[in-house]
């Protein structure tokens, strides 16, 4: 854009004036003011939430981890009875609790406490925690977690992210925490009052690469000092515990446990185009001191892969929601004397949504099954992420297009899915499966 000249300056001024006049003439001043007030209310800049006391426990031998699932030896697309049961329970929760409140949760940028509590009662967090640590899962549960995230996102992706955010932290502790870290933090996640918690990897940088982080962890005499900014952190305002990805001098990226009350830690609201119900915010770390015991010793790349897989699972659920919504719409909508679904231009789009979604599902399931069986899964996750990121976005796009102008207005949920599905291609961290 060229520099503003005198004419440009005059036009800009006129525009401001005209805008103001229009507001008054239409009596919209009050509405606009109310909008500004609402945005401020939803917005915040604050120190981190006051966290409960996580009583430190000394290292007491080997950490407890779920075993790898044995290789069943045959190609199989049938979930276990247990998985089918969990899936249908979560699906019911999604249809009864998440979908009816999705529009409001989007507006207010929050997931209702009652929804979060019910999700906790469903035991979605317990599935990944071994029995010895108070959970339900003695085997890795990547496929089950994928089925849970998929079923939840069929209701609403934003609220699903909010509900699943604490599981990301507990799963990280289960997979990579030592016995002291597990004993200190996991009891809270198997209790009645599961803390808000978040896995913070993403940063507000262009061409973000989770293997090349701007957030730094510098070694200090007692541990590390963390400095940097994390973005798209779910439930940022209320999270009591964070697992933060930071680059350690000379060692590359690693994960750190950071309590929300730490000095130098602050959060601010950062609502985005979609996923608004997740209460996304930025996490600022300004020389936040953590002890050396805050370092999670684990393969960092596995964390990135399992999070990407989680986003694939979310894309499956929301893409299915799009398909389920457009089918009755195009069958009922009449144009030129017959349902628009009788036209190939419409019908073929529906066919392609169906085909691509089925492919996304199989590619995601394959990666998940390999992960839980302890097989290499980097390639499979990369392909699932590429496919779900690209095709998920297309499905959101086609969903709105098939509804035409009705897809563009908030009377229908499709515009929200369009916004939510865009995140799948680039989101890092946040949930773990």
């Amino acid at each position, binding site marked *: 854009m060229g520099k503003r000249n005198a004419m440009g300056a005059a036009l800009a001024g006129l525009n401001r004036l005209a805008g103001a006049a229009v507001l008054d003439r239409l009596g919209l001043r009050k509405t606009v003011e109310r909008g500004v007030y609402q945005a401020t209310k939803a917005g915040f800049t604050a120190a981190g939430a006051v966290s409960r006391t996580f009583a430190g426990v000394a290292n007491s031998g080997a950490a407890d981890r779920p075993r790898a699932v044995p290789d069943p030896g045959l190609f199989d697309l049938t979930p276990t009875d247990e998985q089918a049961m969990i899936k249908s329970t979560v699906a019911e929760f999604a249809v009864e609790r998440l979908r009816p409140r999705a529009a409001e949760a989007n507006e207010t940028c929050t997931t209702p406490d009652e929804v979060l509590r019910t999700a906790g009662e469903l035991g979605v967090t317990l599935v990944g925690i071994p029995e010895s640590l108070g959970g339900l899962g003695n085997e890795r549960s990547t496929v089950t977690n994928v089925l849970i995230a998929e079923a939840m996102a069929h209701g609403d992706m934003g609220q699903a992210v909010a509900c699943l955010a604490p599981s990301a932290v507990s799963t990280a502790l289960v997979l990579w925490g030592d016995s002291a870290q597990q004993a200190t933090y996991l009891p809270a996640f198997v209790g009645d009052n599961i803390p808000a918690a978040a896995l913070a990897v993403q940063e507000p940088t262009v061409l973000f690469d989770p293997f090349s982080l701007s957030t730094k962890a510098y070694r200090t005499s007692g541990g590390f000092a963390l400095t940097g900014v994390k973005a798209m952190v779910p439930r940022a305002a209320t999270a009591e515990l964070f697992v933060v990805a930071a680059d350690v001098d000379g060692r590359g990226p690693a994960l750190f446990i950071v309590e929300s009350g730490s000095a130098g830690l602050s959060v601010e609201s950062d609502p985005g185009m979609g996923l608004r119900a997740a209460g996304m915010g930025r996490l600022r770390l300004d020389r936040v001191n953590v002890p050396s015991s805050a370092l999670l010793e684990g393969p960092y790349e596995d964390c990135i892969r399992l999070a990407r897989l989680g986003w694939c699972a979310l894309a499956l659920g929301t893409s299915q929601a799009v398909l389920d919504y457009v089918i009755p719409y195009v069958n009922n909508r009449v144009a030129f004397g017959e349902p628009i*679904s009788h036209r190939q231009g419409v019908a*073929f789009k529906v*066919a392609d949504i169906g085909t691509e979604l089925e492919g996304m599902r199989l*590619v995601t399931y394959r990666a998940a099954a390999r992960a839980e069986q302890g097989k290499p899964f980097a390639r499979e996750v990369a*392909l699932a992420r590429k496919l779900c990121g690209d095709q998920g976005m297309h499905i959101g796009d086609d969903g709105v297009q098939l509804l035409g102008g009705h897809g563009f207005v908030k009377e229908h949920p499709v515009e929200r899915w369009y916004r939510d599905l865009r995140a799948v291609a680039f989101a890092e961290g946040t949930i773990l499966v």
Partner: protein
Amino acid sequence: MINLEVPAKFARLVAQAHQAAAEFFRPNSRKYDESEHTYPRELDLLAALLDGLSASGGGAGTSGVRRGSTSDSTANRNGANLRLLLGTIEMCWGDVGLLLSMPRQGLGNAAIASVANDEQLARYRGKWAAMAITEPDTGSDSAAIRTTATPDGDHYVLNGEKIFVTAGARADCVVVWATLDRSLGKSAIKSFVVDRDTPGFDLVRLEKKLGIRASDTAHFRLTNVRVHRDNLLGSPEVTTGFAGAMQTFDNTRPLVAAMAIGLARAALEETRRLLTTANIPIDYDRPPHTQPTPAADFLTMEADWESAHLLALQAAWMADNHQPNSLQASMAKSKAGRTATEITLRCLALTGALGYSETSLLEKWSRDAKILDIFEGTQQIQQLIIARRLLNKTSAQLK
């Protein structure tokens, strides 16, 4: 329990098929692309080997698409359909045109295996059967075929013209689709096994093609061809039948998807090798947008390939487990057909003059790929089938 790995019990079969593709097909790929209509002699030996495999284990070859009676057991099965699909993928990694020229592995064999009665099955064992549906004026709309079959005592008399008959000139017999009464629509369409040397069954010409030139594509004229009624596949009643004939496609479409998957994998492997020589590694962890464009392109192609691959495995697995799979078979064919064409053409963009040259097989694969989005139901026919299923529409509503 959800697991999408190829079972270990098929590892030997896959390895054998791969060896055959590498040692018999690849070395002859260019030769038979250049000398179209020359019979690939080398395949006789390979076919004998495959017959042996088929006799010992069953299920190798297109006859493996026959479905067993419904099993009482609800136990998960990985059987003949999956095995055949995996074998086809490996062979087409070698050469699609040569696979289509494999003696006794024609689509007619798949049709016989799918719908023949036990007597017919026994009679045609060991025969090479081609398939004749398309006519000069009728392609996708197979219900509109004009070739007629008129009853005459114990025989039917066939008249008409058939084109695009794969391996038609080489096969022992051809499964010909004809109508008993054009006014009765598709339920009057029946398929007949016609021996190649039956009087009046004349070869008009062999087509010259864009790709799969190792495979012969025949044009036949049928003039008063007398076929015994025992050669009619399925029920002779006009009230039933077309659905039965179409059922063949549920079995063969995943196989055409398998061809596309094998061919596309060959192109991806060769392109990856060439990219590596240009110092472009493919990184599965770093985001595509931080990698060189060719690497990001490669990831996109491989992701589509993975999707097509698993869709085909799903369709075959469902057939093995006696689940209706029309929808999934069409999804596999739709995704694999368009993906193979996109991948091979895009690989040429990445490899430039190197891949475009006849010194590389990449240009050949790009030509071969296109037919896989056309035969056994074009891309658009697959989309129609998928859309009708998803939208719950009849062919009268969604045309």
